[in-house]
């Protein structure tokens, strides 16, 4: 079967689902963060595929922006995790529930 | 799919890697000899297989200057005990040397080491985004060192690994930015096009000397060589990230360092010194015959070796930087300098056009 847009979208979706599972099921903050990156990459893949099959470059520009934003987000997020770890000696989401009612 | 293409590619890859290893091995010898000369010592001068000196005419030559020293070194590496310390992360401990050497090997794929031989271009992959590929692969080189430092489960390798990766990431930026003027001038990201442009207009080192200087110094840092060999500073860290390694695993790190050097000098040759071209004797045009093609490859190798000599010479001439000085130099001197360089180049180009 000839590989078309829907194949890429399926891969993208499955990657997204993996990321989502990781975010919801893993308890290590860093791994959750990596799962987030997986989800972002899934979006990137979908955008590039759309860009390719719709003959427009705008999708790739968007991916470029997403990569930039992801880099910024990771740096800030990791700094937060480090700050949190210094205070709590833990990077485990179940230990960080002080926002509870 | 073109079978021709596959076969020739495989051949090119094999030859390139073989040559790479040979150069790397003799670079080690060169390093030792040059350091010996600089320090007024003799250096390796007698290693040879038994009875070699009895070969007429060639014998006395082959037994001098330690020509077979690399062979002995390699043999020694292979025959030593491969020792795995207790308490290491085994998987990473094993993978790390491989991860270190792979990027340094595959980065040469985009470097055009000759013009054409027959119908084959003398480059393994003529990519349109060649330079981006190079930087992408080079950036992966960090992992080997980080993993090695982490896997050893020991303080010195760990510190060495962290230092090294921070240093490499930092200098990647100034390195990447330093070459942008080159591509602004040449007008393409394809390395073959850059060489073609140089064949027509002259070497880029004349047009962008600042780029070359930054690239060269960043290259020292990227390859973890003096004066920036903080990751393996013996006086502080015993041996850096490869302290706990022995035998062939250690050899792979060693090889990776020299391969990186070769890749860096290859890039420099390509970007700043016209690659396989020489500005006279018609050597700046793609070859018509196999002979000229081989001459051009040799020209490329000669330029590379000259630059390697600079690397080695610098190693034995300069003292080591302190780590904060290193970072200060990278972020507060080279990055702004590279940006200014880009701006000035762009403005000049715009003014000319």
């Amino acid at each position, binding site marked *: 079967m000839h590989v078309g847009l829907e194949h890429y979208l399926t891969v993208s979706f499955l990657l997204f689902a993996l990321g*989502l599972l990781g*975010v*919801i*099921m893993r*308890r290590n*903050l860093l791994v*959750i963060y990596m799962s987030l990156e997986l989800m972002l990459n899934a979006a990137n893949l979908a955008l590039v595929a759309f860009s390719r099959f719709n003959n427009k470059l705008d999708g790739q520009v968007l991916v470029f922006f997403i990569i930039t934003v992801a880099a910024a987000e990771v740096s800030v997020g990791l700094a937060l995790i480090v700050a949190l770890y210094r205070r709590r000696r833990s990077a485990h*989401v*179940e230990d*960080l*529930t*002080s*926002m*509870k*009612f | 799919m073109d079978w021709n293409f596959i076969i020739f590619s495989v051949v090119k890859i094999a030859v390139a890697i073989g040559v790479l290893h040979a150069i790397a091995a003799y670079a080690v010898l060169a390093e030792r000899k040059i350091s010996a000369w600089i320090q007024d010592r003799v250096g390796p001068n007698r290693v040879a297989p038994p009875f070699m000196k009895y070969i007429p005419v060639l014998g006395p030559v082959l037994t001098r200057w330690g020509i077979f020293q690399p062979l002995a070194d390699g043999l020694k590496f292979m025959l030593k005990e491969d020792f795995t310390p207790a308490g290491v992360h085994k998987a990473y401990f094993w993978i790390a040397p491989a991860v270190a050497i792979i990027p340094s090997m595959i980065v040469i794929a985009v470097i055009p080491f000759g013009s054409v031989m027959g119908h084959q271009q003398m480059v393994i992959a003529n990519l349109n985004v060649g330079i981006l590929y190079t930087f992408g692969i080079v950036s992966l080189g960090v992992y080997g060192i980080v993993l090695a430092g982490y896997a050893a489960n020991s303080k010195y390798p760990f510190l060495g690994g962290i230092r090294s990766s921070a240093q490499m990431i930092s200098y990647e930026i100034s390195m990447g930015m330093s070459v942008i003027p080159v591509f602004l001038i040449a007008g393409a990201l394809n390395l073959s096009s850059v060489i073609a442009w140089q064949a027509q207009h002259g070497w880029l080192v004349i047009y962008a000397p600042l780029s070359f200087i930054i690239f060269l110094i960043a290259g020292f840092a990227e390859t973890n060589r003096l004066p920036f060999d903080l990751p393996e500073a013996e006086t502080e860290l015993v041996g850096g990230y490869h302290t706990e390694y022995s035998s062939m695993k250690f050899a792979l790190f060693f090889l990776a360092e020299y391969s990186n050097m070769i890749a860096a000098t290859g890039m420099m040759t390509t970007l700043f010194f016209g690659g396989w071209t020489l500005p006279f004797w018609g050597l700046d045009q793609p070859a018509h015959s196999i002979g000229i093609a081989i001459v051009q490859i040799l020209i490329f190798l000669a330029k590379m070796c000259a630059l390697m000599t600079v690397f080695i010479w610098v190693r034995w001439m300069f003292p080591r930087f302190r780590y904060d000085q290193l970072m200060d130099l990278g972020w507060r001197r080279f990055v702004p300098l590279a940006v200014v360089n880009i701006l000035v180049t762009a403005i000049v180009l715009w003014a000319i056009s």
Partner: protein
Amino acid sequence: MKYELLPWLTLFLPLFAAVFITLFTLRCKTLSSFISIGAIVAGFILTVVFISANGFQIRAESVRTWLSIGNLQVDFGLKLDALSLMMMLIVTGVGGAIHIYSRGYMREDPGMARFFAFLSLFTFSMLGIVLANNFVQLFIFWELVGVSSYLLIGFWFEKPSAGDAAKKAFIVNRLGDFGFLLGILMVWGLLGSLNFSQLQGQLAANSQALGTMATIAGLLIFCGAVGKSAQFPLHVWLPDAMEGPTPVSALIHAATMVAAGVYMLCRVLFVLNADALQVVAYIGGFTALLSALIAIQQNDIKRIIAYSTLSQLGYMVMAVGLGGPTPAMFHLTTHAFFKALLFLSAGSVITALHHEQDIWKMGNLKSKMPVTFWTFLAGALALSGIFPFSGFYSKDSILGQALVRHNYLLFGVGVFVACLTTFYIFRLFFVVFLGKEKSDLSSHAHESPPVMTGPLLVLAVFSVIGGYIGIEGIYNRMFAAQPETSAGFAAALVAPFHAAPMAAWLGILAFFIGLACAYGLYAKADKDPLPEILGPLATAMKNKFYFDELYEGVFVRAHDCIAAVMNGIDRWLVEGFCIGLIRGGTDLTGRCLRYFQTGNLQTYAFLFVLGVVVALYVVLR
């Protein structure tokens, strides 16, 4: 009109002084007092300069537009005519004298800087009322005067009685001001303008412009005067206001603020029609009689003078009601002189006796406080209205006005009140200054310092000569259709005997009757002989005819009842049911929703995903 800026300056100097003192010099008593005194004296000088440059004749307005909403245009303007200029002279002149006096009177008080800030604020507000050219401006300054009066009455707030008196004054004034505001709104609604000149023009062109509401509108506006000038039935606050420092009593509750009601009536006389004026006249007359009767049996030196003030204000209001703004303003002016004088003299006595105010503990102060004695005598004679003191002329013109209107009832009341006035003020005079020393305090009294006696002397001079220096003429030019030709000094001196001989002679007769009674009863008295003669009537007088008790019984009790009902509604219906329902609902919802707030990142992520799914479903459906 030359020096147009001067009235503005006069108006705002005291405000500047008040602000400056409040912000910067509260710690510095002497400097504060000098700033305040400087502001008002400068105002007086500026006013004199302005009048000498332009005369009293001008009828001009100096206007800046303040705000404009729809067809409501409110100006901030100064109305400059004989009425307001004369009032400015009184406010800054008498006020200045009282400021200087305060410097001596308050010299021991730690809050002197605050006191002078309040005084300056009051001066500013009073000048604002005087100069206002429209109802809104008038009303705003009217309320400002109320505020500064409140602050000054309650100046010694550590005394509970002072605080109560301040509250009482403020609240009673609110009642009158409420009516006043209604009246202003009614006038605006009916005539569409608030500017005095425009209103006067409209009403002159069409006297029926207010239609059937004319009487009501007039009476509502009169309500303001009833409150501020303490007329019956809102007269109860003024005697209590004597809890404030004596200069305050002199300045606010004798000379200026309480006169503001009368002034306002004269200013807006064109709004009041005949029926309304009738009511005004009778209320004035009744107040005059009532308070004179109460004054007879009071023992507190300041309260006697306070009831006297009420009585005199009744005179003025009666004069306005009888259609005589000139006599009213004339009496207001002379009253400002002699009543301020009386209060300040009383203040002098009080300080000499270390804040003892009961007249039955004084006596024989004549030899110990000669200046105060003579100035008080001058004030008393002026108040009693004996020829040739200033009170004689103004009172005579009021009685004459009653005769002109052929209102013999009010004329009779006036004469009787004059008789009573002489009686009670000389009762006070005899008991305090003559006779025996009735306590140790009075035997150790001595004269006040010059900073206090100086203003007394100035005011005494004006109390004596105030009647024939042409003040009436100035007002006449403002109100009378054809100005009188100015007469010579001698003619002015005896003018009342020509203009209204009956009023003049009866007034003098009343004085002598009152004096004789007072001398006979009190010249040698140790205690009050009157209660034995009058019996229950005296008790009633002593208790102010039980007005406070009546109000307490009727209004306060009724108010408490309403408040209790409202409290019940608020507590059970509004709070218990309406708010309780909302609060309980919110509380319940919150209790449910907080179970979603687990503090666990992944719960939030899960909920977030669900939300996104729902949103996507809706969008992609």
